């Protein structure tokens, strides 16, 4: 019903908006403008997968008529209107025909009766496909409150978006939960987990469609599992357990500081519902575990912040700028579930920086992480940028092209390792948007582009942030109401391995 109504109204709207009714004949006479045309989103010299949805955009130039011509040799595609909204089928065919080639993009604007052609740019169509789906949490860049949070999935080849879970399905307002940290095992949409906080709290775990809710908090552990990492082969999830706090800047535009006064690491055996401590009651702060693709190494972040008082929370709050994280790894015995000694991988604190969110490329060669001036929760740190390390050579890789003057934070590799998706606040400094970038066989990153949307105005009008963008090989098929049924039940209490 909703879709039917939407479709009817949308068709009418676009007819009236004149997006596709103008003359699509490419002007033969025009004057040249030596600048690139101003558009939003600014898709510019991008490398895109051949299976990506149309890169619709709008002109922000003054004009009466607008036209976009895409061409690759004799293969031409033209769209017109102030909002350039490509036909999805034609776009897909066009990209498929031109895999591995460069498409010339020419933009024309007619103003005061005269056509102008702006400096052409190009779109390179990569032969490497991107995973069909991503998922993300949609939430306002909020502080404490939550009301209408959802975890959604988006087909990258089209504009189809659907809910995985949303807290509006709960029966009463006071039952609305905070949901967070969705994570998949090896990009498998049928094996995932996410946390439900507050009332009816627990960790929802789905294995091949079978759902359960687990309470991992046992005896002296700081908390239940927080930041997850599924083991690629085993039914194990590594978690950090954190005593997390949130405080607010009184004047700084970064607005929020999230920090841990204590944190450790645990391993959760999904089959046995058993918790195995990795680090427990250590003076260091350990966080953000992530497995190597082989599952024989566990990467994580550590801060050696030395606390001198009993009131850890207050001390950390006062000295928050002194907290710096480095990236370490532990070897892992996949038979006995034992760990080796910590080895440092990124010594960011030595340079006065703080490195978090280690993510290893599927081929195991590259480590992508976030680096900011201090702290653990870089999504609120303007200094936060993406960094990459070649694990084979130990050398840093220049990924400057991914970064901006604003926040770059949560990132994820596609299953073939050729695409990176990450969160950025570069658009307006406040609302997080997903950006996708190509990473080629030679270890080079290409200019990122924002996740395309059907309506180019989408991001202007969207008042929610895209949180934790994660690639998936397909859609999650468990329904939100099935998940709700599990949330309504009492959680399975995890045992601590003796």
């Amino acid at each position, binding site marked *: 019903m909703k879709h039917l109504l939407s479709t009817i109204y949308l068709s009418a709207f676009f007819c009236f908006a004149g997006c596709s009714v103008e003359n699509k004949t490419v002007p033969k006479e025009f004057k040249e403008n030596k600048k690139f045309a101003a558009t939003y989103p600014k898709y510019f010299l991008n490398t895109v997968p051949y299976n990506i949805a149309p890169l619709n955009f709008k002109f922000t130039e003054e004009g009466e008529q607008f036209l976009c011509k895409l061409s690759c040799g004799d293969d031409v595609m033209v769209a017109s209107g102030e909002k350039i909204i490509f036909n999805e089928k034609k776009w897909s065919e066009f990209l498929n025909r031109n895999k591995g080639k460069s498409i010339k993009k020419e933009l024309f604007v007619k103003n005061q009766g005269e056509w102008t052609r702006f400096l052409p740019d190009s779109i390179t169509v990569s032969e490497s496909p991107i995973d069909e789906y991503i998922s993300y949490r949609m939430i306002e860049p909020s502080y404490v409150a939550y009301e209408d949070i959802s975890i959604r999935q988006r087909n990258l080849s089209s504009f189809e978006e659907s809910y995985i879970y949303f807290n509006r399905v709960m029966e009463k307002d006071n039952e609305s939960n905070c949901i967070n940290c969705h994570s998949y095992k090896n990009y498998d949409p049928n094996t995932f987990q996410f946390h439900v906080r507050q009332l009816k709290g627990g960790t929802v775990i789905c294995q091949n469609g079978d759902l359960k809710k687990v309470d991992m908090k046992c005896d002296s552990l700081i908390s239940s599992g927080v930041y997850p990492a599924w083991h690629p082969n085993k039914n194990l999830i590594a978690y950090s357990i954190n005593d997390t706090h949130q405080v607010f800047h009184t004047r700084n*535009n970064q607005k929020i500081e999230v920090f841990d006064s204590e944190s450790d690491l645990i391993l959760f055996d999904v089959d046995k519902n058993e918790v195995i401590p990795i680090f427990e009651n250590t003076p260091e702060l350990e966080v953000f575990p992530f497995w190597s693709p082989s599952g024989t190494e566990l990467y994580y972040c550590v801060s050696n912040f030395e606390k001198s008082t009993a009131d850890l929370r207050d001390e950390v709050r006062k000295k928050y700028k002194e907290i710096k994280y480095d990236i370490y790894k532990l070897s892992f015995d996949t038979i006995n579930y034992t760990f080796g000694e910590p080895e440092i991988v990124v010594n960011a604190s030595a340079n006065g920086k703080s490195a978090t969110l280690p993510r290893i490329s599927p081929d195991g060669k590259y480590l992508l992480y976030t680096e900011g001036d201090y702290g653990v929760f870089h999504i609120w740190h303007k200094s936060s940028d993406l960094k990459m390390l070649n694990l084979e050579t130990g050398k840093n890789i220049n990924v400057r092209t991914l970064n901006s003057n604003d926040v770059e934070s949560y990132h994820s590799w596609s299953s073939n390792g050729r695409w990176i998706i990450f969160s950025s606040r570069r658009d307006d400094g406040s609302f997080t948007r997903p950006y996708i970038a190509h990473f080629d066989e030679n270890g080079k990153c290409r200019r990122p582009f924002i996740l395309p949307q059907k309506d180019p105005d989408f991001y202007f009008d969207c008042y929610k942030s895209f949180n934790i963008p994660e690639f998936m090989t397909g859609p999650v098929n468990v329904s939100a109401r099935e998940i709700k049924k599990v949330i309504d039940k009492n959680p399975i209490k995890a045992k601590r391995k003796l």
Partner: protein
Amino acid sequence: MKNTHEFKTINYYTLILESIFFLSILLWLKYQYSDFFIKAQELSLFLNSFDFFKSFLDRPGGILLYLGSFLTQFYYYPILGITIFAALLLLMQWLVISTFRLKGKLFGLSFIPVALTVVTVTQIGYMIYIIKLPDMMFTQLIGVIGMLLICKVSTLIKKSEYRPLWIAVTSVVLYPVLGIYALAASLVSICIFFRQRTSTYNILNEAGLTLAINLAVVIGYYHYIFKISIIRAWLYPLPDFRISSSELILWAPYISLFITFMLMGLFMPSDIKNEKESSFLNLCNKLKPVLLILSISYIYFFSHKDDAFVTELKVDRAMENQQWKEALGYIKDLKSEHTRKLVLTRNVCLYHTKDMGNKMYSFPEGQRLPNAPRPISLVSLSSRPVYYNWGKFCFCYRWCMEDAVENGFRVEYLKYMTKCAIASGELRVASKYIRTLKNTTFHKKWAESYEKFITEPDNIANDPSFAPFLVLNQFDDYLDGDGSKIEVYLLNNFSNLTKGSIELSEVSLVSSMILKDIDKFWPRCFYYYNKTNNLPKHYQEAAVLYEYLEKKVDITPLNISPQIKQRFDSFMKLTEYFKTDDVNVLRPHFEKKYADTFWFYYFFENDLKTY
């Protein structure tokens, strides 16, 4: 015998009653609720965009909500909104009369549903800040109209075999549009069908069938269309009042409306009257003025009436326009006990008129709780105007965002977010909010007036829209939190300031006085005096009192006025005169002469509770 008298057109007598009824409603709404309606549209949002329309399609009754949102914006000019509201009330009344055949002698009964519908709006009061359906100024009225239209069509269906089909169509097709009102309409229609029954009519069958259809419709839409909880699926688009004893009163007009329509359907007059029915009609005819008085009385007694609330609304508006003196005038005019919000906003206004030191204690203290069925925190009521006007942009922005998360983005939140973002130099996100506000009908101009700062940010610092607040924002950043206790936070935060502009040092001084913190008072008092070479009245009063109590500090350099010294001596003599420490006994005696002094505040205003 066919009685034609009750179906004759409205006579003059009825017209006079009708005029009295509607005039009373119009005047009541205009003079009691204009400020409320302005606030209601500020706490609403209607955007002229297709996407905005689409956003309403995800719930039953979404189109009603959309229409409600559309009409609520007209309260920007209260008289315009009230006129539209009254016109729709008239339409509703006409539908009631027409559907339930209340012309003539039964006309007086039509006042009842109108009065109940008016109260759905006038009872809201403070709840406007926390309910998640701010557009209910019109939504419920349009819902009732939609429901009556369905019932009207029901009366026209004479063939009983079409009735189940009509019920099914009503529920299936109109439930997404009208939500619970479509379901209610089908139940009222059953009552109408029962009244119009033939000998073969089986009420149990049809009622059972209707309930089954409604159940199937709601469950069907719940499972396949609307991604909401089952409770919401039943109740949309009714407001989200709690189903609890404390909020039962808010549900009362809705339940009463439904019962009224059911009864009207069951007992609507038939074409052929028996004796019993005729005597009932005659009774109703005689009772018309009584029904009028009862309906008006019901509106009066069940509407939210609170002079402090009205004052708060006026003060909010004045503060938004930086009309500090007008705001203080409204506060001064309030004769009943003040709320903490008024105390908080009073201090802000006094700061901006530079009268804190001379006039603060000429305003009464107060701790009156908001007159609402649910506890409402001060932070919900006043975080935006108070934090913004005290230059705390980060915290103002935070609470705008928190409230937007809870209730959806609204005009008031977006305006404050725009101002905070501009004042904090976050121009990109400010332009996002401006873009949204430019998409409204009545706030477009406001948005355009702030758009100039995006292109010319150099003007921000000296522009009167920002300059007075930027002065207060000159402090070092640190991590903090108000714990949702705005008043306590502000007092502690300001009183703990140890450096900053002269403006901030004065606020710090005043905060130490409000907290009765003598140790913090002295350094701030001397600092202020040394910087300005002037010590307003209340600061002198505090200095004299503290010097008397502690005898530690030499106040000679503060150049205390002889009048204040003399008055303090009289104050102390009066304390010696009454040989008791019982403040309840002493208070009336001191209130007469010293209510406008810091001394009175210090000794008699104790245990003030914030919330």
